[in-house]
């Protein structure tokens, strides 16, 4: 009902009330507002574009494996009965690991440098985190699910492994060691 009046009053322009000075500020800020809006929208588009491009073209995804397991029998399940490092026929390396209160099993992992290493892990109790300090190997280990992801460690060296999800009163001592062996290719 007030549409026409509203238009008229908009026509009176910005800065009414601020006098000459207010009008000046209003007009200038309005230009900045347009620049900012388009700039911010552009920035958002660049962010989304970068993520979607690397995901689509470089297949860069977070660990998103879908496989379930009964946590109450995980320790004897054939997939996790003998945790450790094994070399597969195709030259890749597989690490089977249990994360439990308050240790990783095995506690020390030795893998070769420069070769893809596939981690497969689960938890027989609460949720844990698996994080190789100084790398981007980082994943949640949840009871009932198998976490799987593949990383290549280019440089030989030693890394601390920490649990980064609160798992009880011993959370802060739950850690392990990753030793990357050999020469960088």
């Amino acid at each position, binding site marked *: 009902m007030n549409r026409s009046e*509203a238009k008229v009053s908009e026509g009176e322009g910005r800065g009414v009330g601020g006098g000459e000075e207010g009008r000046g500020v209003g007009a200038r800020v309005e230009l900045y507002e347009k620049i900012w809006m388009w700039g911010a929208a552009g920035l958002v588009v660049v962010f989304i574009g970068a993520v979607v491009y690397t995901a689509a073209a470089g297949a860069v995804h977070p660990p998103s494996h879908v496989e379930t397991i009964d946590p109450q029998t995980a320790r004897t399940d054939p997939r996790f009965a003998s945790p450790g490092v094994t070399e597969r026929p195709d030259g890749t390396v597989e690490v089977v690991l249990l994360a439990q209160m308050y240790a990783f099993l095995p506690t020390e992992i030795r893998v070769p440098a420069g070769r893809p290493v596939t981690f497969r892990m689960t938890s027989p109790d609460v949720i844990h985190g698996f994080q190789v300090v100084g790398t981007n190997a980082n994943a949640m280990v*949840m009871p009932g699910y198998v976490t799987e992801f593949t990383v290549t460690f280019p440089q030989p060296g030693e890394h601390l492994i920490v649990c980064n999800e609160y798992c009880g009163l011993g959370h802060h001592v739950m850690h392990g060691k990753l030793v990357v062996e050999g020469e960088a290719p």
Partner: protein
Amino acid sequence: MSADRSGALPTARTTLEPRVGAPAASPSYRLELANLSVAVAAFGVGAAMAVMQALSRANLALPLRSPGVYYLSVTAHGVLMALVFTTFFIMGLGYVVLRAALGRDLVSERLGWISFWVALAGTAAATAAILSGTSSVLYTFYPPLQAHPAFYIGAALLVVGSWGWCVVMVRTYRHWRRDNPGTAIPLPVHGMLATVIIWLLATVGVAAEVVLLLIPWSLGLRETVDPVLARTLFWWFGHPLVYFWLLPAYVVWYSVLPRVAGGRLFSDPLARLAFVLFILFSTPVGLHHQFLDPGIPAGWKLAHTVSTYVILFPSFLTAFTVIASLEVAGRLKGAAGWFDWITKLPWSDPLYSSVALAMLTFAVGGFGGAVNAAYAMNAMVHNTAWVQGHFHLTVGTAAALTFMGTSYWLLPRLTGKELRFKGAAQVQPYLWFAGMVMFGVVNHVTGIMGMPRRLYEASYVGAEAAARWSEWTAISAVGGVVLFVSAMLYIAVMVGTWLWSKPGAAPAIEFAEPLSPLREDRGVWDRLGLWTILAIALVAIAYFYPIGQLLRTERFGSPGFRPF
């Protein structure tokens, strides 16, 4: 009616004199004060819990220091600050905004009181469960860590109480709308209603988690719970929770700050657009907290990444509009040149300084959030100290410091009592900022180094990597102590004003006028029903398929564990 309005408007537009505030018939504000006092009490206890954790970072051999006390205090700090302080403060602020900006009484204030008592009973039950040491599950309460049933039932009652608040808010608005069809919603009310809509959308997830899974499980009526399903429902709630905290802060930034600074709100329509974008995109983003979870396919994680970045945009708009409003304030006070206007702003006013420092902190925290959301880059920071650094800048400062500043502004207006210990109120925001800079910087840096969050002690029996971050953590301990001092000053001002200030005439509660003439009719951004329906559709798209997929998979739940 339209003649009346067009007759009244020019006076409002052509003068910078404060327009007379809300003509509310001198309400007693008892309901508001009840909610705010619970918020302040929760804040005080939460802060006391935090200082002990901060000192733990310096690795001092304090009496009573033990993992049991530490994780209990982390749980209490998180629940009391993030859930209790914020919820009660926002409920109180919401009532004030509606009463003052609509100029009418609340509809069914009785329901408001029932909601208050229900929420308070829930808070008491959950707090007792935490302090008894049987519920050290942290405020995210991920199963299969299992708390005492009173913890979950208390949390559920807090949410039920907040739903009563939502009903009072919506009913009051609808009564006003019936009497004012076709009128634009006052901007602060628009923002508070957006908060209500987001809260209703968000709490569906946590209610399902707590009522269907966790309460029966903790009572032994249900053997097992699937932790991925529970986490998915939790983060359905957990991320929009962030906007539930933030939007009321934005209401203050848009509608109170420019007024206190002596300026005008630069752009009213942009503010409404921002609120509507929050309604649409706050909720379908939760999977960005679960990037590193197994059991959820990558495609849906990517979809939630996109909506997460969209939600950056309204915050960018807010940054511009609010800063432009402040520049207008400075220039109206005669500032010339590029930056002179900054010096003209009332830096000794505790509301102004709180909000300005909160916004500055939020700019940094927001960019940190863009890193967290970056799908693949997230793996560098997930569950590290970076994350606790991030949310202490966002909720712990952008929202909490705004709320503290708002209390300094609000309390005299609600009670007619002048602030006591004004000097303390003036220093407090700067102390908070200084403490948070120390705490925030250290947590971001040590997080990048790989230090996990939520650690009683971070030395890992002398590991080399841990030695590097331990050099830094002492600084965050100092920051924590500074924050504690600031928190206690805030409590002192609140309690001092409440107890030792004589009531007089209360200043009016007034909101900022827009610089350009206000659109008086109801525009597209005011069609909140329509935006709510669209938001529900987006939530359905974002969650129904991934959750359905999860439910169709053969899953094995987990029994409960109480390792505390």
